[in-house]
């Protein structure tokens, strides 16, 4: 009939695109032929925290096609450009396929037994000589729930150390602490539906168009359909997001801490708050202040209950008096009149206001405080727990929520909002794990920055890194790379490609990735999504959960993992699920997730999901007639914290006159180990560039594409200047991305961190900028 297979496939492609755009077309019957022999399975996308659903087509043991999943409620049939990299991320030429062991400067192929025996011997030796706190495991928000759960049980319940961290410490920790100290439970009350249902969106330092494109598209669809919808972009840099915003408000780095306080000042001054909501749901608190920045090793800071003072509403109002718009104008750069206007936006009873933020707020030396202040806006005005008006903290990794936060693979956490410091929590965990409660140490382990500093100090003897690339992504990178290079610790790295971390390892283990294994991810809106294995991993590569259990057996902890070989993932999940039941974080049985495109917890007794937490309208933990009930917070009252302005850890001065900020762009994800494998794309966006404001560039005699040297007190790199490109920082600031493994930009970054969350500030340090 003159039609080729190619025509069939093109018809399929067009039909899928029409369907995703909302037009049902009759797909020609002959188009079905194009998909002959392809077996389709569902999986959440491998990349960011949005959690789009993907249909994966397999033929002859290889992935041959992917589709945005039309049944996926998150993305409704569409993926962002990173969808093109889903297959490529698995099929790069240089996949790691066999274990490697360091012999001097060479890495030598080894069997799994050799590699695992060596790792176990090193861990045993360190534990025997220096105790269990001399070893560590460092994972990620890309771990599946099963991987994180096995890691936590092994380290906390088996080896007996809380030295377990995820790379999510570098991106989400500030959000977690603020959720806990405000609401008593991690993760949002709202969900993505708020992007479709609201009419006002205030972005606090978030470039959603590039970092969360599918969610941004939902927001823009809402905006194009509803003229009332207003998008306000408050940022230190003009981006693709700015182009779509109704208003761009330039803010100085760290200015959010001042501007938010001043907005609250106006809301209090002009009585724009919701008096009844405040009286019923809010308690006012003041915490510990004048915290250090963590720049000294082992610098300790904690906000214990003894440090917290309860305030009356009147006392709180009095404390907020000095934070006037005029004062904030000087600190934040936002005109006082604009601050008054923002307060009226938040206070406008006819507007459904949403705040959205991500790394700009979290990677902040006062990140918890900024999160707290954003919640204050919503709690004072009562714009929370209602369809279309909520604060939403966006995440960056596919299971930063599901694994790092819900399973709790942090140095202080246990599953389902529990912590190691709490005896009752340790007892509950020990009960489910079938171990004596005293096996789980009460001492908080090393947080990420301290973990890698402890290598340099010679205190940490063994660290195993899975599914992440810390020797590119940590701040003040020179120090930790030098420590590793001088072989101060025994380092194991499990990954799918060679990275700047595998090059420093003593043992490199080849991992299975994404649909080469079975797993579950949890996304930003509390959606838990399962997938099955669809293809084999290459060579000898094995999934991380298998690696950990084989290691556990060699460490004498095999009895903790009595899972059948067939059905292992189900068994692990069902055990983990016990932690969640009855807590308001309830998960469904594993078999349910196999069938649906995810469910948002808490899953109700009747098996349906919860879109809005803490409201009788949707959350079954709130009884009828109770309206909104913050049932996870002490006395059902959420905390509005007084959080004063304190300056950043390092500010520009005569020697280092510019602000330096790092971030992400659309095409490259994280440290680029997966998205860096697309040659044409590398040519288009081949390397990290440094963006300058045109006036700064002119003053320094720098033209577009010139080589520019960026120097901080910690390091110096040369980058190509980008002027008038896709992003433009404000005057006095420069911006670069961290994906390029040939340009270790984090050597420039300061390792200051938030005193409460221990999350480093990758967005602010002082540099000098010179034409190279």
């Amino acid at each position, binding site marked *: 009939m003159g039609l080729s297979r190619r025509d069939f496939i093109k018809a399929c492609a067009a039909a*899928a695109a029409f369907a995703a755009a909302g037009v049902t077309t009759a797909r020609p019957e002959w188009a079905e032929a194009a998909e002959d022999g392809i077996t389709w399975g569902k999986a959440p996308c491998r990349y960011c925290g949005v959690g789009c659903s993907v249909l994966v087509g397999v033929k002859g043991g290889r992935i041959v096609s992917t589709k*945005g999943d039309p049944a996926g409620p998150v993305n409704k049939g569409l*993926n962002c*450009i990173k969808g093109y990299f889903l*297959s490529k991320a698995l099929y*790069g030429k240089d996949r790691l396929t066999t274990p490697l062991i360091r012999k001097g400067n060479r890495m030598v192929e080894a069997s799994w037994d050799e590699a695992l025996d060596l790792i176990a011997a090193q861990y045993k030796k360190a534990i025997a000589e220096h105790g269990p706190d001399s070893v560590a495991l460092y994972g990620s928000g890309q771990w599946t729930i099963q991987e994180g759960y096995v890691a936590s049980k092994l380290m906390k319940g088996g080896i007996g150390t809380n030295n377990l961290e995820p790379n999510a410490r570098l991106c989400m920790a500030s959000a977690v602490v603020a959720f806990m100290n405000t609401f008593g439970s991690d993760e949002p009350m709202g969900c993505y539906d708020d992007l479709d249902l609201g009419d006002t969106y205030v972005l606090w330092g978030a470039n959603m168009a590039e970092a969360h494109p599918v969610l941004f598209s939902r927001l*823009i669809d809402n905006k194009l359909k509803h003229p009332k919808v207003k998008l306000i972009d408050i940022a230190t840099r003009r981006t693709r997001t700015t182009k779509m915003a109704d208003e761009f408000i330039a803010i100085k780095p760290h200015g959010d801490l001042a501007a938010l306080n001043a907005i609250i000042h106006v809301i209090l001054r002009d009585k724009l708050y919701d008096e009844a909501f405040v009286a019923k749901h809010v308690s006012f608190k003041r915490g510990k202040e004048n915290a250090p920045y963590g720049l000294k090793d082992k610098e300790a800071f904690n906000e214990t209950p003894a440090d917290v003072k309860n305030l009356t509403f009147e006392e709180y109002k009095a404390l907020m008096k000095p934070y006037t718009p005029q004062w904030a104008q000087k600190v934040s750069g936002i005109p006082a009149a604009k601050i008054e206007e923002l307060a009226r936006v938040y206070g406008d009873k006819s507007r459904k206001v949403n705040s959205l933020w991500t790394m700009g707020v979290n990677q902040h030396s006062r990140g918890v405080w900024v999160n707290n202040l954003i919640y204050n806006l919503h709690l004072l005005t009562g714009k929370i727990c209602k369809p279309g008006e909520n604060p939403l903290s966006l995440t960056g990794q596919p299971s930063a929520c599901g694994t790092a936060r819900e399973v709790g693979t942090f140095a202080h956490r246990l599953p389902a909002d529990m912590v190691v410091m709490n005896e009752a929590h340790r007892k509950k965990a020990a009960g489910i794990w079938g171990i004596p409660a005293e096996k789980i140490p009460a001492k908080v382990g090393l947080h990420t920055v301290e973990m890698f500093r402890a290598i340099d100090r010679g205190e940490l003897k063994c660290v195993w890194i899975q599914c992440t690339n810390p020797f590119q992504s940590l701040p003040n990178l020179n120090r930790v790379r030098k420590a590793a290079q001088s072989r101060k610790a025994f380092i194991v790295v499990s990954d799918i490609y060679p990275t700047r971390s595998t090059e420093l390892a003593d043992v490199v283990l080849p991992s299975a990735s994404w649909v080469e294994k079975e797993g579950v991810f949890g996304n930003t809106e509390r959606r838990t999504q399962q997938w099955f294995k669809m293809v084999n991993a290459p060579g000898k590569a094995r999934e991380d959960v298998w690696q950990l259990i084989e290691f556990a057996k060699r460490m004498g902890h095999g009895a903790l993992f009595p899972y059948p070989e067939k059905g292992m993932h189900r068994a692990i999940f069902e055990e983990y699920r016990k932690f969640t039941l009855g807590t308001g974080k309830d998960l469904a049985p594993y078999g349910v997730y196999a069938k649906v495109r995810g469910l948002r917890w808490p899953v109700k007794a009747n098996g349906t999901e919860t879109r809005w937490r803490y409201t009788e309208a949707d959350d079954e933990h709130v009884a009828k007639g109770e309206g909104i009930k913050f049932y996870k917070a002490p006395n059902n009252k959420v905390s509005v914290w007084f959080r004063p302005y304190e300056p950043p850890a390092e500010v520009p001065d005569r020697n280092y006159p510019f602000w330096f900020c790092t971030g992400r762009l659309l095409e490259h994800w994280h440290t680029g180990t997966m998205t860096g494998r697309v040659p044409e794309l590398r040519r288009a966006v081949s390397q990290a560039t440094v963006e300058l404001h045109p006036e700064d560039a002119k003053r320094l005699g720098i033209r577009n594409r010139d080589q520019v040297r960026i120097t901080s007190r910690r390091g110096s790199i040369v980058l190509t200047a980008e002027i008038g490109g896709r992003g433009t920082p404000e005057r006095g600031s420069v911006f670069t991305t961290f994906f390029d493994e040939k340009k270790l930009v984090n050597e420039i970054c300061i390792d200051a961190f938030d005193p409460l969350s221990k999350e480093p500030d990758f967005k602010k340090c002082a540099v000098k900028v010179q034409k190279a």
Partner: protein
Amino acid sequence: MPISGIVVSCRPEEAGGIAEKIAGNRGVEVHGVLADGKIVAVVEADSIDAEVALVNGLQQMEGVISVQLAYHNFEDAAPEGAHPAGL
């Protein structure tokens, strides 16, 4: 040769003009322009890399809000893409 079905979003009033420009790219067929500013197109190229480069170009065009991927078939694509640093 890989083939993909994409949806390009733009402001409704600009969609017609952008669709014409998009159709001017070798390897891009515009299949429809919808009233809400969405353009449905099919992209084909010699390799996934070339395809991504093409789509990346569309994404950078003035007036384009986003390019999203609905369908991607690459059944005859060869393994490719060693890492840039050759680590």
